[in-house]
């Protein structure tokens, strides 16, 4: 994975499991997020591209993660995250915040309806295209109770 070798795990830091879900191979955005989240003081477990739901969950359990951040850029996000919350509940991490962002649906749909659909599927937050890493970081700090 992408963690530098010299880095020693820090129990004080909040841990994020990030990755691009489904059959999506967009590799650039997730690297930028990895960098931005680290820079903002998070411990990042970057699963890369083509990540399955099970991989997010196994990684989150093993690393005792504080949040899962799902990226989806190819328009199939809605299909790909369906059932993710239920599996988290099954795996004993039902309360973990799950964020999703990118181009999460196909075509031009009003984002408030899109957001409502993703929140109904158990996502904690859903972000429209063009969201900056800073916005996500702000919400993460708020939701995870990190001192600003």
């Amino acid at each position, binding site marked *: 994975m992408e*963690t530098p070798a010299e880095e020693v795990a820090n129990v004080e830091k909040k841990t994020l499991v990030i990755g691009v879900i489904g059959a999506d191979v967009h590799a650039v955005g997730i690297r930028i997020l990895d960098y931005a989240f680290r820079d903002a003081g998070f411990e990042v477990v970057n699963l890369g591209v083509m990540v399955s739901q099970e991989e997010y969950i196994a990684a989150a359990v093993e690393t005792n993660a504080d949040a899962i951040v799902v990226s989806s850029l190819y328009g199939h996000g809605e299909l790909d995250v369906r059932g993710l919350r239920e599996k988290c509940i099954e795996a004993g991490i039902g309360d973990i915040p799950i964020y999703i962002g990118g181009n999460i649906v196909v075509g031009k749909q009003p984002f408030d309806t899109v957001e409502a659909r993703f929140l109904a599927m158990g996502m904690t937050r859903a972000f429209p295209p063009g969201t900056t890493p800073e916005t996500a970081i702000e919400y993460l700090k708020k939701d995870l109770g990190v001192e600003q």
Partner: protein
Amino acid sequence: MSNNLETTALLCDFGSTYTKLTVVDLDKEAIVAKTRVPTSIDTHLEDGLNAGEEELRRQGVDRIDARLACSSAAGGLKMAVSGLMPELTVEAATRAALGAGAKVWRVYSHELTPSDVHELNESPPDIFLLTGGTDGGNKANILSNARILKSLLKRSFPIVVAGNRVASAEISEILSDFSPVICENVMPRLGVLQVDAVQQAIRHVFLTHIVNAKGLDDVAATLSAPLIPTPSAVLEGVSLLSKGHGESAGLGDLMAVDVGGATTDVYSIGSGLPSEANITQRGLPEPFAKRTVEGDIGMRHSCRGIVKVAGEEAVLSRTGLTDLELEAGLDKREENAGWLAESDKDKRLDDSLAYFALKTALKRHAGQLETAYTPFGKTFIQTGKDLRPFSRMVLTGGPLVALDDAPALVGEALADRDQYLLPLAPRVLVDHNYVLSALGLLATWRPDVALRMILKELSHE
């Protein structure tokens, strides 16, 4: 270390049925004598060794300058491992144990239950490997497992701890009655496999505890190198064959299969990384030298395991035997580990058992390639090792090398590939004299001599 005064080495393999002794002339680089004596559970293992050495003297061996030994006696190195998630720390712990030459008897994921611990009390392993959580990750699981071991474990066996380092101090305290060996995490960060420290700890415990418990301490005191579990000796041998030594080049990426009476071990030496750019690798990183063991597949004691996996119909149609003949054939093999096939029918059955054992064990070892359809077209996902370019396959194991044409069976077993990344066209090398484990043992002490001798042994056609 060795010096020029040592010209004759005794290589001793304490097996569960036989203790095999091989004498090597280090100057001539040749095997000068071989014998085997039954390993009896009732007598001290040293007695078997003495009887064997007596026999070697009768064969004309007048001096032995150095002794090396490996052992799979008294059930080998029986381990139980625990971790958190099956595909992460549990898998990492299992691989670490297998790579250290252990027989992994039980694998536990998530929380240990009272009935799990009951099982450990009923049939204690030689070593318990406790893992779980990345460093700074989940700590609740490994702590809960340590506590349940402390409260319900009635038997004492060594416990090696290789989990979340943040929990180590607390675990040390909880398990203080069991003097746990704490080492570095087998998975310090997600997706990072760190097996060296754990394997070193396992080897250390094997030497300090297990060897004594199995009556090998007197033998161990006379050895020129540490006593190791037998599968480690094979792994040493094939690693040396692959990598070479000093000026002598090795054979490069290769596989080895040991179809024995009770288990089938498969080894691969090489990275096995994806060979094309459009293949994405998923899953845990693979150890460069990898060993997998099929505990239910073997040609004698575990012959019914083969039939179960292959299906009785398939075995019957391949051998042309009747139900009753198959049943009788399996009975004979199960009862007697040293039994040799003589009749045509028995040879046909051995042949088929070997074929199905190879087919199953090779597939279980190999990586797989799945096709994924994305909006951008086809893409491929690889899990495990890509063994397609591996150029050699070494066959060893008593019942396997005794067959008339084992290489043909390999070709046949590899023909049916499905999604498995099996070697495409390996050259098959047969360990006809069944000396790979003995020479692997020599590899730990005199790698230069061992390499030349292994090459010579495997070049017999």
